[in-house]
């Protein structure tokens, strides 16, 4: 029982991190209809940048976070402006290929500039896990994961609020619904495309800091981006609540599966179970748990 609870709790904590990264993907898909295959690489490059700031340039942590968030936001703006705006109106495949190219470029840039060896990304958070006792079920929780989950949930809440309640969010959803009509309403569609990429940049910066701390920074950090696809397919490609729920499900399922199956097969369960889940989800509910329903009036 304790073992199961431990797996579930850890799964949930990791899941919030998946949700955070998936949020970047969802924001871009929602606003621009583009599938961003470079989300993991954005996280990776943010990790490299932060590690370099802290270790090479000795920038204090608070300033590092601020600089990283700002820099990733600008990178998001830049990517939209330079690479994606000329592709507006082109077939979806052009945009997809462009983001795959972007992924490769980012993957090369990190090691090129800052070196390929794995870097530490230390955060001033105690490492020793502590015991939590809820209803006689004892669970081991590590502080960094708790902090990460808190940050992720806070950001998800903020972005969710912006999207659902603010005028900016209404305009973004209007753009997602129909670009031409949004233009007819005086909405500067391109500006909202840029905004979506900037938001994805912010999310990537936070993801890079946290995942970089957990896994260490090298090109393999980009692999967390692979978890984005099961998360968003499960939750719904264009849904923020979907990103949250999908992230939690993937986190728990892979955690539990790995906990029980890995001892027999010697590892690797974590990598394929989410995709198994994704394929099942595509068969049963192709638009995800919270995906945009197709409105049909009869």
């Amino acid at each position, binding site marked *: 029982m304790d073992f199961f609870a431990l797996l579930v709790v850890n799964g949930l904590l990791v899941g919030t991190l998946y949700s955070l990264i998936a949020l970047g993907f969802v924001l871009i898909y929602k606003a621009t209809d583009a599938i961003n295959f470079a989300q993991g690489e954005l996280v990776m490059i943010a990790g490299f940048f932060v590690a370099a700031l802290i270790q090479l340039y000795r920038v204090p942590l608070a300033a590092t976070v601020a600089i990283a968030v700002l820099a990733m936001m600008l990178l998001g703006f830049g990517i939209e402006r330079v690479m994606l705006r000329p592709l507006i109106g082109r077939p979806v495949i052009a945009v997809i290929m462009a983001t795959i190219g972007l992924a490769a470029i980012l993957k090369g840039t990190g090691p090129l500039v800052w070196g390929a060896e794995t870097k530490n990304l230390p955060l001033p958070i105690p490492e020793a896990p502590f015991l939590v006792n809820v209803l006689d079920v004892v669970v081991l929780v590590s502080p960094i994961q708790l902090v990460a989950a808190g940050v992720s949930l806070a950001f998800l809440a903020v972005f969710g609020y912006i999207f659902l309640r603010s005028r900016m969010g*209404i305009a973004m*959803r*209007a753009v997602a619904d*129909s670009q031409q009509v949004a233009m007819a309403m005086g909405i500067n569609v391109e500006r909202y495309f840029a905004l979506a990429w900037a938001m994805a940049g912010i999310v990537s910066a936070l993801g890079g800091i946290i995942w970089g701390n957990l896994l260490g920074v090298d090109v393999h950090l980009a692999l967390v981006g692979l978890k984005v696809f099961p998360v968003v397919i499960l939750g719904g490609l264009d849904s923020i609540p979907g990103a949250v729920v999908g992230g939690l499900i993937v986190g728990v399922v892979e955690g539990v599966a790995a906990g029980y199956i890995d001892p027999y097969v010697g590892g690797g369960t974590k990598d394929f179970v989410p995709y198994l889940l994704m394929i099942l989800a595509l068969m049963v509910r192709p638009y995800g748990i919270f995906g945009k329903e197709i409105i049909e009036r009869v």
Partner: protein
Amino acid sequence: MPVLALNNVEVIYDQVILVLKGVSLQVPEGGIIALLGANGAGKSTTLKAVSGLLRPERGAVTGGAIEFAGERIDTLPAHAIVRRGIVQVLEGRRIFEHLTTEENLIAGAHTRGDWGAIVGGLDMVYGYFPRLRERRDLKAGYLSGGEQQMLAIGRALMSRPRLMLLDEPSLGLAPRLVEEIFEIIQRLNREEKLTVLLVEQNATMALTIAHHGYVMETGRIVLDGDAATLRENEDIKEFYLGLTEVGSRKSYRDVKHYKRRKRWLS
């Protein structure tokens, strides 16, 4: 002095297809102007040329000039044109399906600065379309066809336009609803001093509320005049009002023999 003037406007799609071949028309301040014509005549393209919505369809104004209130607007992006007071209601009730009725309206007020203006705008729109108030929290995709058309017009009103470009507001609606919507357009014109450029297939309805009309065919204006004159015009009667010279309904057998349309092309 017309508020909107098109002067010999040419539009080319995909850099090869010439869709408008020199369209000139004028919309006076406070008027309702009807733009009539068959499918593919270039009516919607004319509206989109004015509102700046050609670009996403790979179209461009390649000749002539479009002036609004004395200023050239044919090179401005769509959002800048809305800010200057022109708003287009696109053909086919293109509402934001996944937003609620009220969110649709708020999105329509995107160019307005403050919440006060939005609240005022909502009150005005709900005043004209009380049914929208009842449906304010419903996802717009689930509204009925008539309600969606009302929402599309109401949403356009939220930007407080001087000139509204209406593309086929009667499309696919029951006759009673069409009448209701045309009445509201007339009231908006009178009470809100809204200038209207109206594209319609339903020429009878359009010419009842319009002051002046233009007839388009294959990218050109072929006929224009005040609404009363157009209603009496033999060609209009025959091709758009569906009446023969004696005023009875036309039979299919006559349709096969018409030759008159050719007169306009010379």
